[in-house]
C-alpha cells in the first residue's frame, strides 16, 4: 500500500512493503512496529533506532506526539489523494466548522452572535472547567451560524456550541 503523508506542507511518500519493510522516498527501511499493551502508544524500531510516540486521530488529521514534539499530518493513499484532487481543495475548506466543547463545563460567555464575521483566533466561547476560564477560539475566518448555547449553560464534552461557516 502506498501513502502520501503531509506534515507542514512537506510530503513523504511511504510504501508499506510487508510487515517489516517500508519504502520511504525510494529507500527501503527495516521497521519493527508495535502498539504497547493495546494502548495508543507505539514503539518503532527503525534500523536499530528506538522511537516511541502517542498517536491520536483528530478532525485535523493524525497527531503524533514524540519526545515532546507534536506533528500533525494527513495520511492519504493514492486513490484518496486522486479523489481529493479531483474534488478540488475549495470544497473541503468551505465546510462548516463546528465548535465542540473540549470538556464538560459551564458557558461563561459567548462574545459573538449569529451572522457576525470572525477572524482566525477570535474568541468564540469562554468555558469554565477545572476552575479555569478557557477561551475557545475560531480555527479560521468565517461567519458565525447557529449559536446553540448561552452564558450559564452546562455543556457536555463534544457538545456542539456553535458553528462557523
Amino acid at each position, binding site marked *: 500500500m502506498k501513502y502520501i503523508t503531509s506534515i507542514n506542507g512537506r510530503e513523504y511518500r*511511504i510504501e508499506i512493503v510487508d510487515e517489516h519493510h*517500508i519504502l520511504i522516498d525510494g529507500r527501503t527501511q527495516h521497521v519493527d512496529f508495535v502498539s504497547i499493551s493495546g494502548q495508543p*502508544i507505539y514503539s518503532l524500531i527503525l534500523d536499530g533506532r528506538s522511537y516511541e510516540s502517542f*498517536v491520536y486521530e483528530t478532525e485535523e488529521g493524525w497527531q503524533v506526539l514524540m519526545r515532546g*514534539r507534536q506533528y500533525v499530518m494527513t495520511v492519504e493513499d493514492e486513490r484518496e489523494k486522486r479523489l481529493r484532487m479531483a474534488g478540488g481543495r475549495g470544497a473541503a475548506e468551505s465546510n462548516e466548522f463546528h465548535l465542540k466543547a473540549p470538556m464538560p463545563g459551564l458557558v461563561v460567555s459567548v462574545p459573538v452572535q449569529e451572522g457576525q464575521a470572525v477572524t482566525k483566533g477570535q474568541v468564540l466561547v469562554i468555558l469554565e472547567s477545572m476552575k479555569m476560564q478557557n477561551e475557545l477560539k475560531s480555527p479560521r475566518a468565517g461567519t458565525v451560524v447557529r449559536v446553540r448555547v448561552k452564558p450559564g449553560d452546562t455543556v457536555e464534552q463534544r457538545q456542539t456550541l456553535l458553528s462557523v461557516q
Partner: protein
Amino acid sequence: MVTKVLIANRGEIAIRIIRACRELGIETVAVYSEVDRQALHVRYADKAYFLGPAPSRDSYLRIDKLIDIARKSGADAIHPGYGFLAEREEFAQACADAGITFIGPKPSAIAAMGDKAVARATVSKAGVPVVPGTEDVGNLSDNELLAIAPKIGFPLLIKATAGGGGKGMREVRSLEEMPTLLAAARREAEAAFGDGNVYLEKLVEGARHIEFQILADAYGNVIHLGERDCSLQRRHQKLVEETPSPIMDEDLRQRMGAVAVKAAQAVEYLNAGTIEFLVDKDKNFYFLEMNTRLQVEHPITEMVTGIDIVKEQIRIARGRPLSYRQEDIKLTGASIECRINAEDPYNGFLPSTGRITQMIIPTGPGVRVDTGVFAGSEITPYYDPLIAKLIVWGETRAQAILRMRRALEEYRIVGVRTNIPFHQSLMDSTRFLAGQYDTRFVEERFAMTDPEEDKEYLPEIAAIIGTLVAHQQTQRSAQIVRRGARDTSNWKWLGRWERLQR
C-alpha cells in the same frame, strides 16, 4: 493530642498528608465527593466518609459536613491541605469551636494574612517592604477601586482578597478596560473562594516571584527553609518551581529570610507558611503575600533540606517545639518541580478530561512523583487540572535539569493530554538553562520549541509512525467490513469502527 487526622482535601495533597500521618503512626480519615469514591486518598486512608456531590461547594467546601465527619470518625485534628478551605478563617475557627486541632495557623493569623490587603498593611507596619497598592483595605467597591487605580499607576493587577493560585486575578493596562476586568475577577473569586472581594497592586515588571518557606512553633521559634523561585507561571498559575533560585546569593538569602521571619512574627504565626516576594532586576524585594498553609511546591524544599515539612506541621500542631534551629538548615544540591496538568499545550493549554488508561511514572535516583491518579482514574472537570508533581534532585542545577529531562521523557500518561511536552520544551530552552526568566517569560517570550532549531525535530520518523498507524487502522477496518459482509452498507461498519476507536 493528634492521634487521628481528618484530611479535608483530595488528590495528591491528601495522599501526601496521609503518608506523613502513616509514617508517624497517626490514623487518617479521608473525605470524598461522588466522583472520588475510587480515588487513591480514599483507598489509602484508614477511614473514609462521603461528603456530597462533585462540585466543591457541595463537598470539599462544606465546613458543616467536615466538622460533623470529624466528630463521627473520632478525628482530633484536621489538615486542610492547600486550596479549598485551607485559608478560610471560619474553617479554622469552626475547628477550634469543635475542640479539633487545626493543623495550621490560628484563625487570627489566617484573617490577618488571608485577607491579602490586611496582610500587606500588617507587614508594612512591621517594616517589611510591600508593592504599592490598596494594601490597607480589601473590600473596596468598584467605584473606589476605579478612583484609586490611577494613583497606583498602570499596569496594575486586580487580585482576589481571599485568593491564591491566580484565581480571580486580572492584569489591567488602562482605566478603560478596568470595569470589565473587575467584574470578571470578582466573579471568578466568588466561584473559587466564595468571596468576591478584590484589591489592586502595582505590577512590578521583569519581576521574579521568590518565596520563603517558614516554620513557626508555639514557643516563638520561627525559622525559614530557604527560597523557592516560582517565576515560571502562565495566567498566574505556577508551572515550574526551583530551589535555589538562579538569582539568589547567600547575602540576599539571609536578608530575605530575615524579613520573611519578621513578617511571620508580625502575625504571631504558627505552623508552616510561605512568604511570597517579588524581586526586581536590581534585587529589590517586595512582600507580596503570605500563604498560611502548605504550598503545592513544598517538596523541592524537602529535597534540598531533608526535612519532611508535613511531619513538621503535625509536630507543631501537637505542641512540640521545632526539631530544627535556623543553623541546622543546610541546603544541599538543587531541586526542580514540574506541575503535570491535564491540559494540552498544543491546543492553547485547554484542560483535558477523561479516563487514564495507562500510566508509567518515572522513578529511579533523585526522582519523586507526588500524584493522586492511577491507570483507571477519571479526570473530571470539577477540580483543578493538577494530576501530578514531578520533582527531581541533583547535586547541581545542571544535573537536576538533565534528570528532569530524562524523567519527563520517561513519563507516560495515556487517556488525557498533559502539559509534559510544555515542560520538555521549557527544559530545553536556553533562557531556562541560563536561569534568565521572570514572571512574564512563559506567556510573553516562550514558545514551544521551534522545529527548525531542534535536533529532536524528526518529521520523517513521525510521518512513518503516523502512516503505519493509519495503515493498521485501514487494514482492521477492511477486516471488519469483510466480517460484516451481510450488511449492505460498508460505511456503517466503518463508522462503527471509528466509534470503537474513541
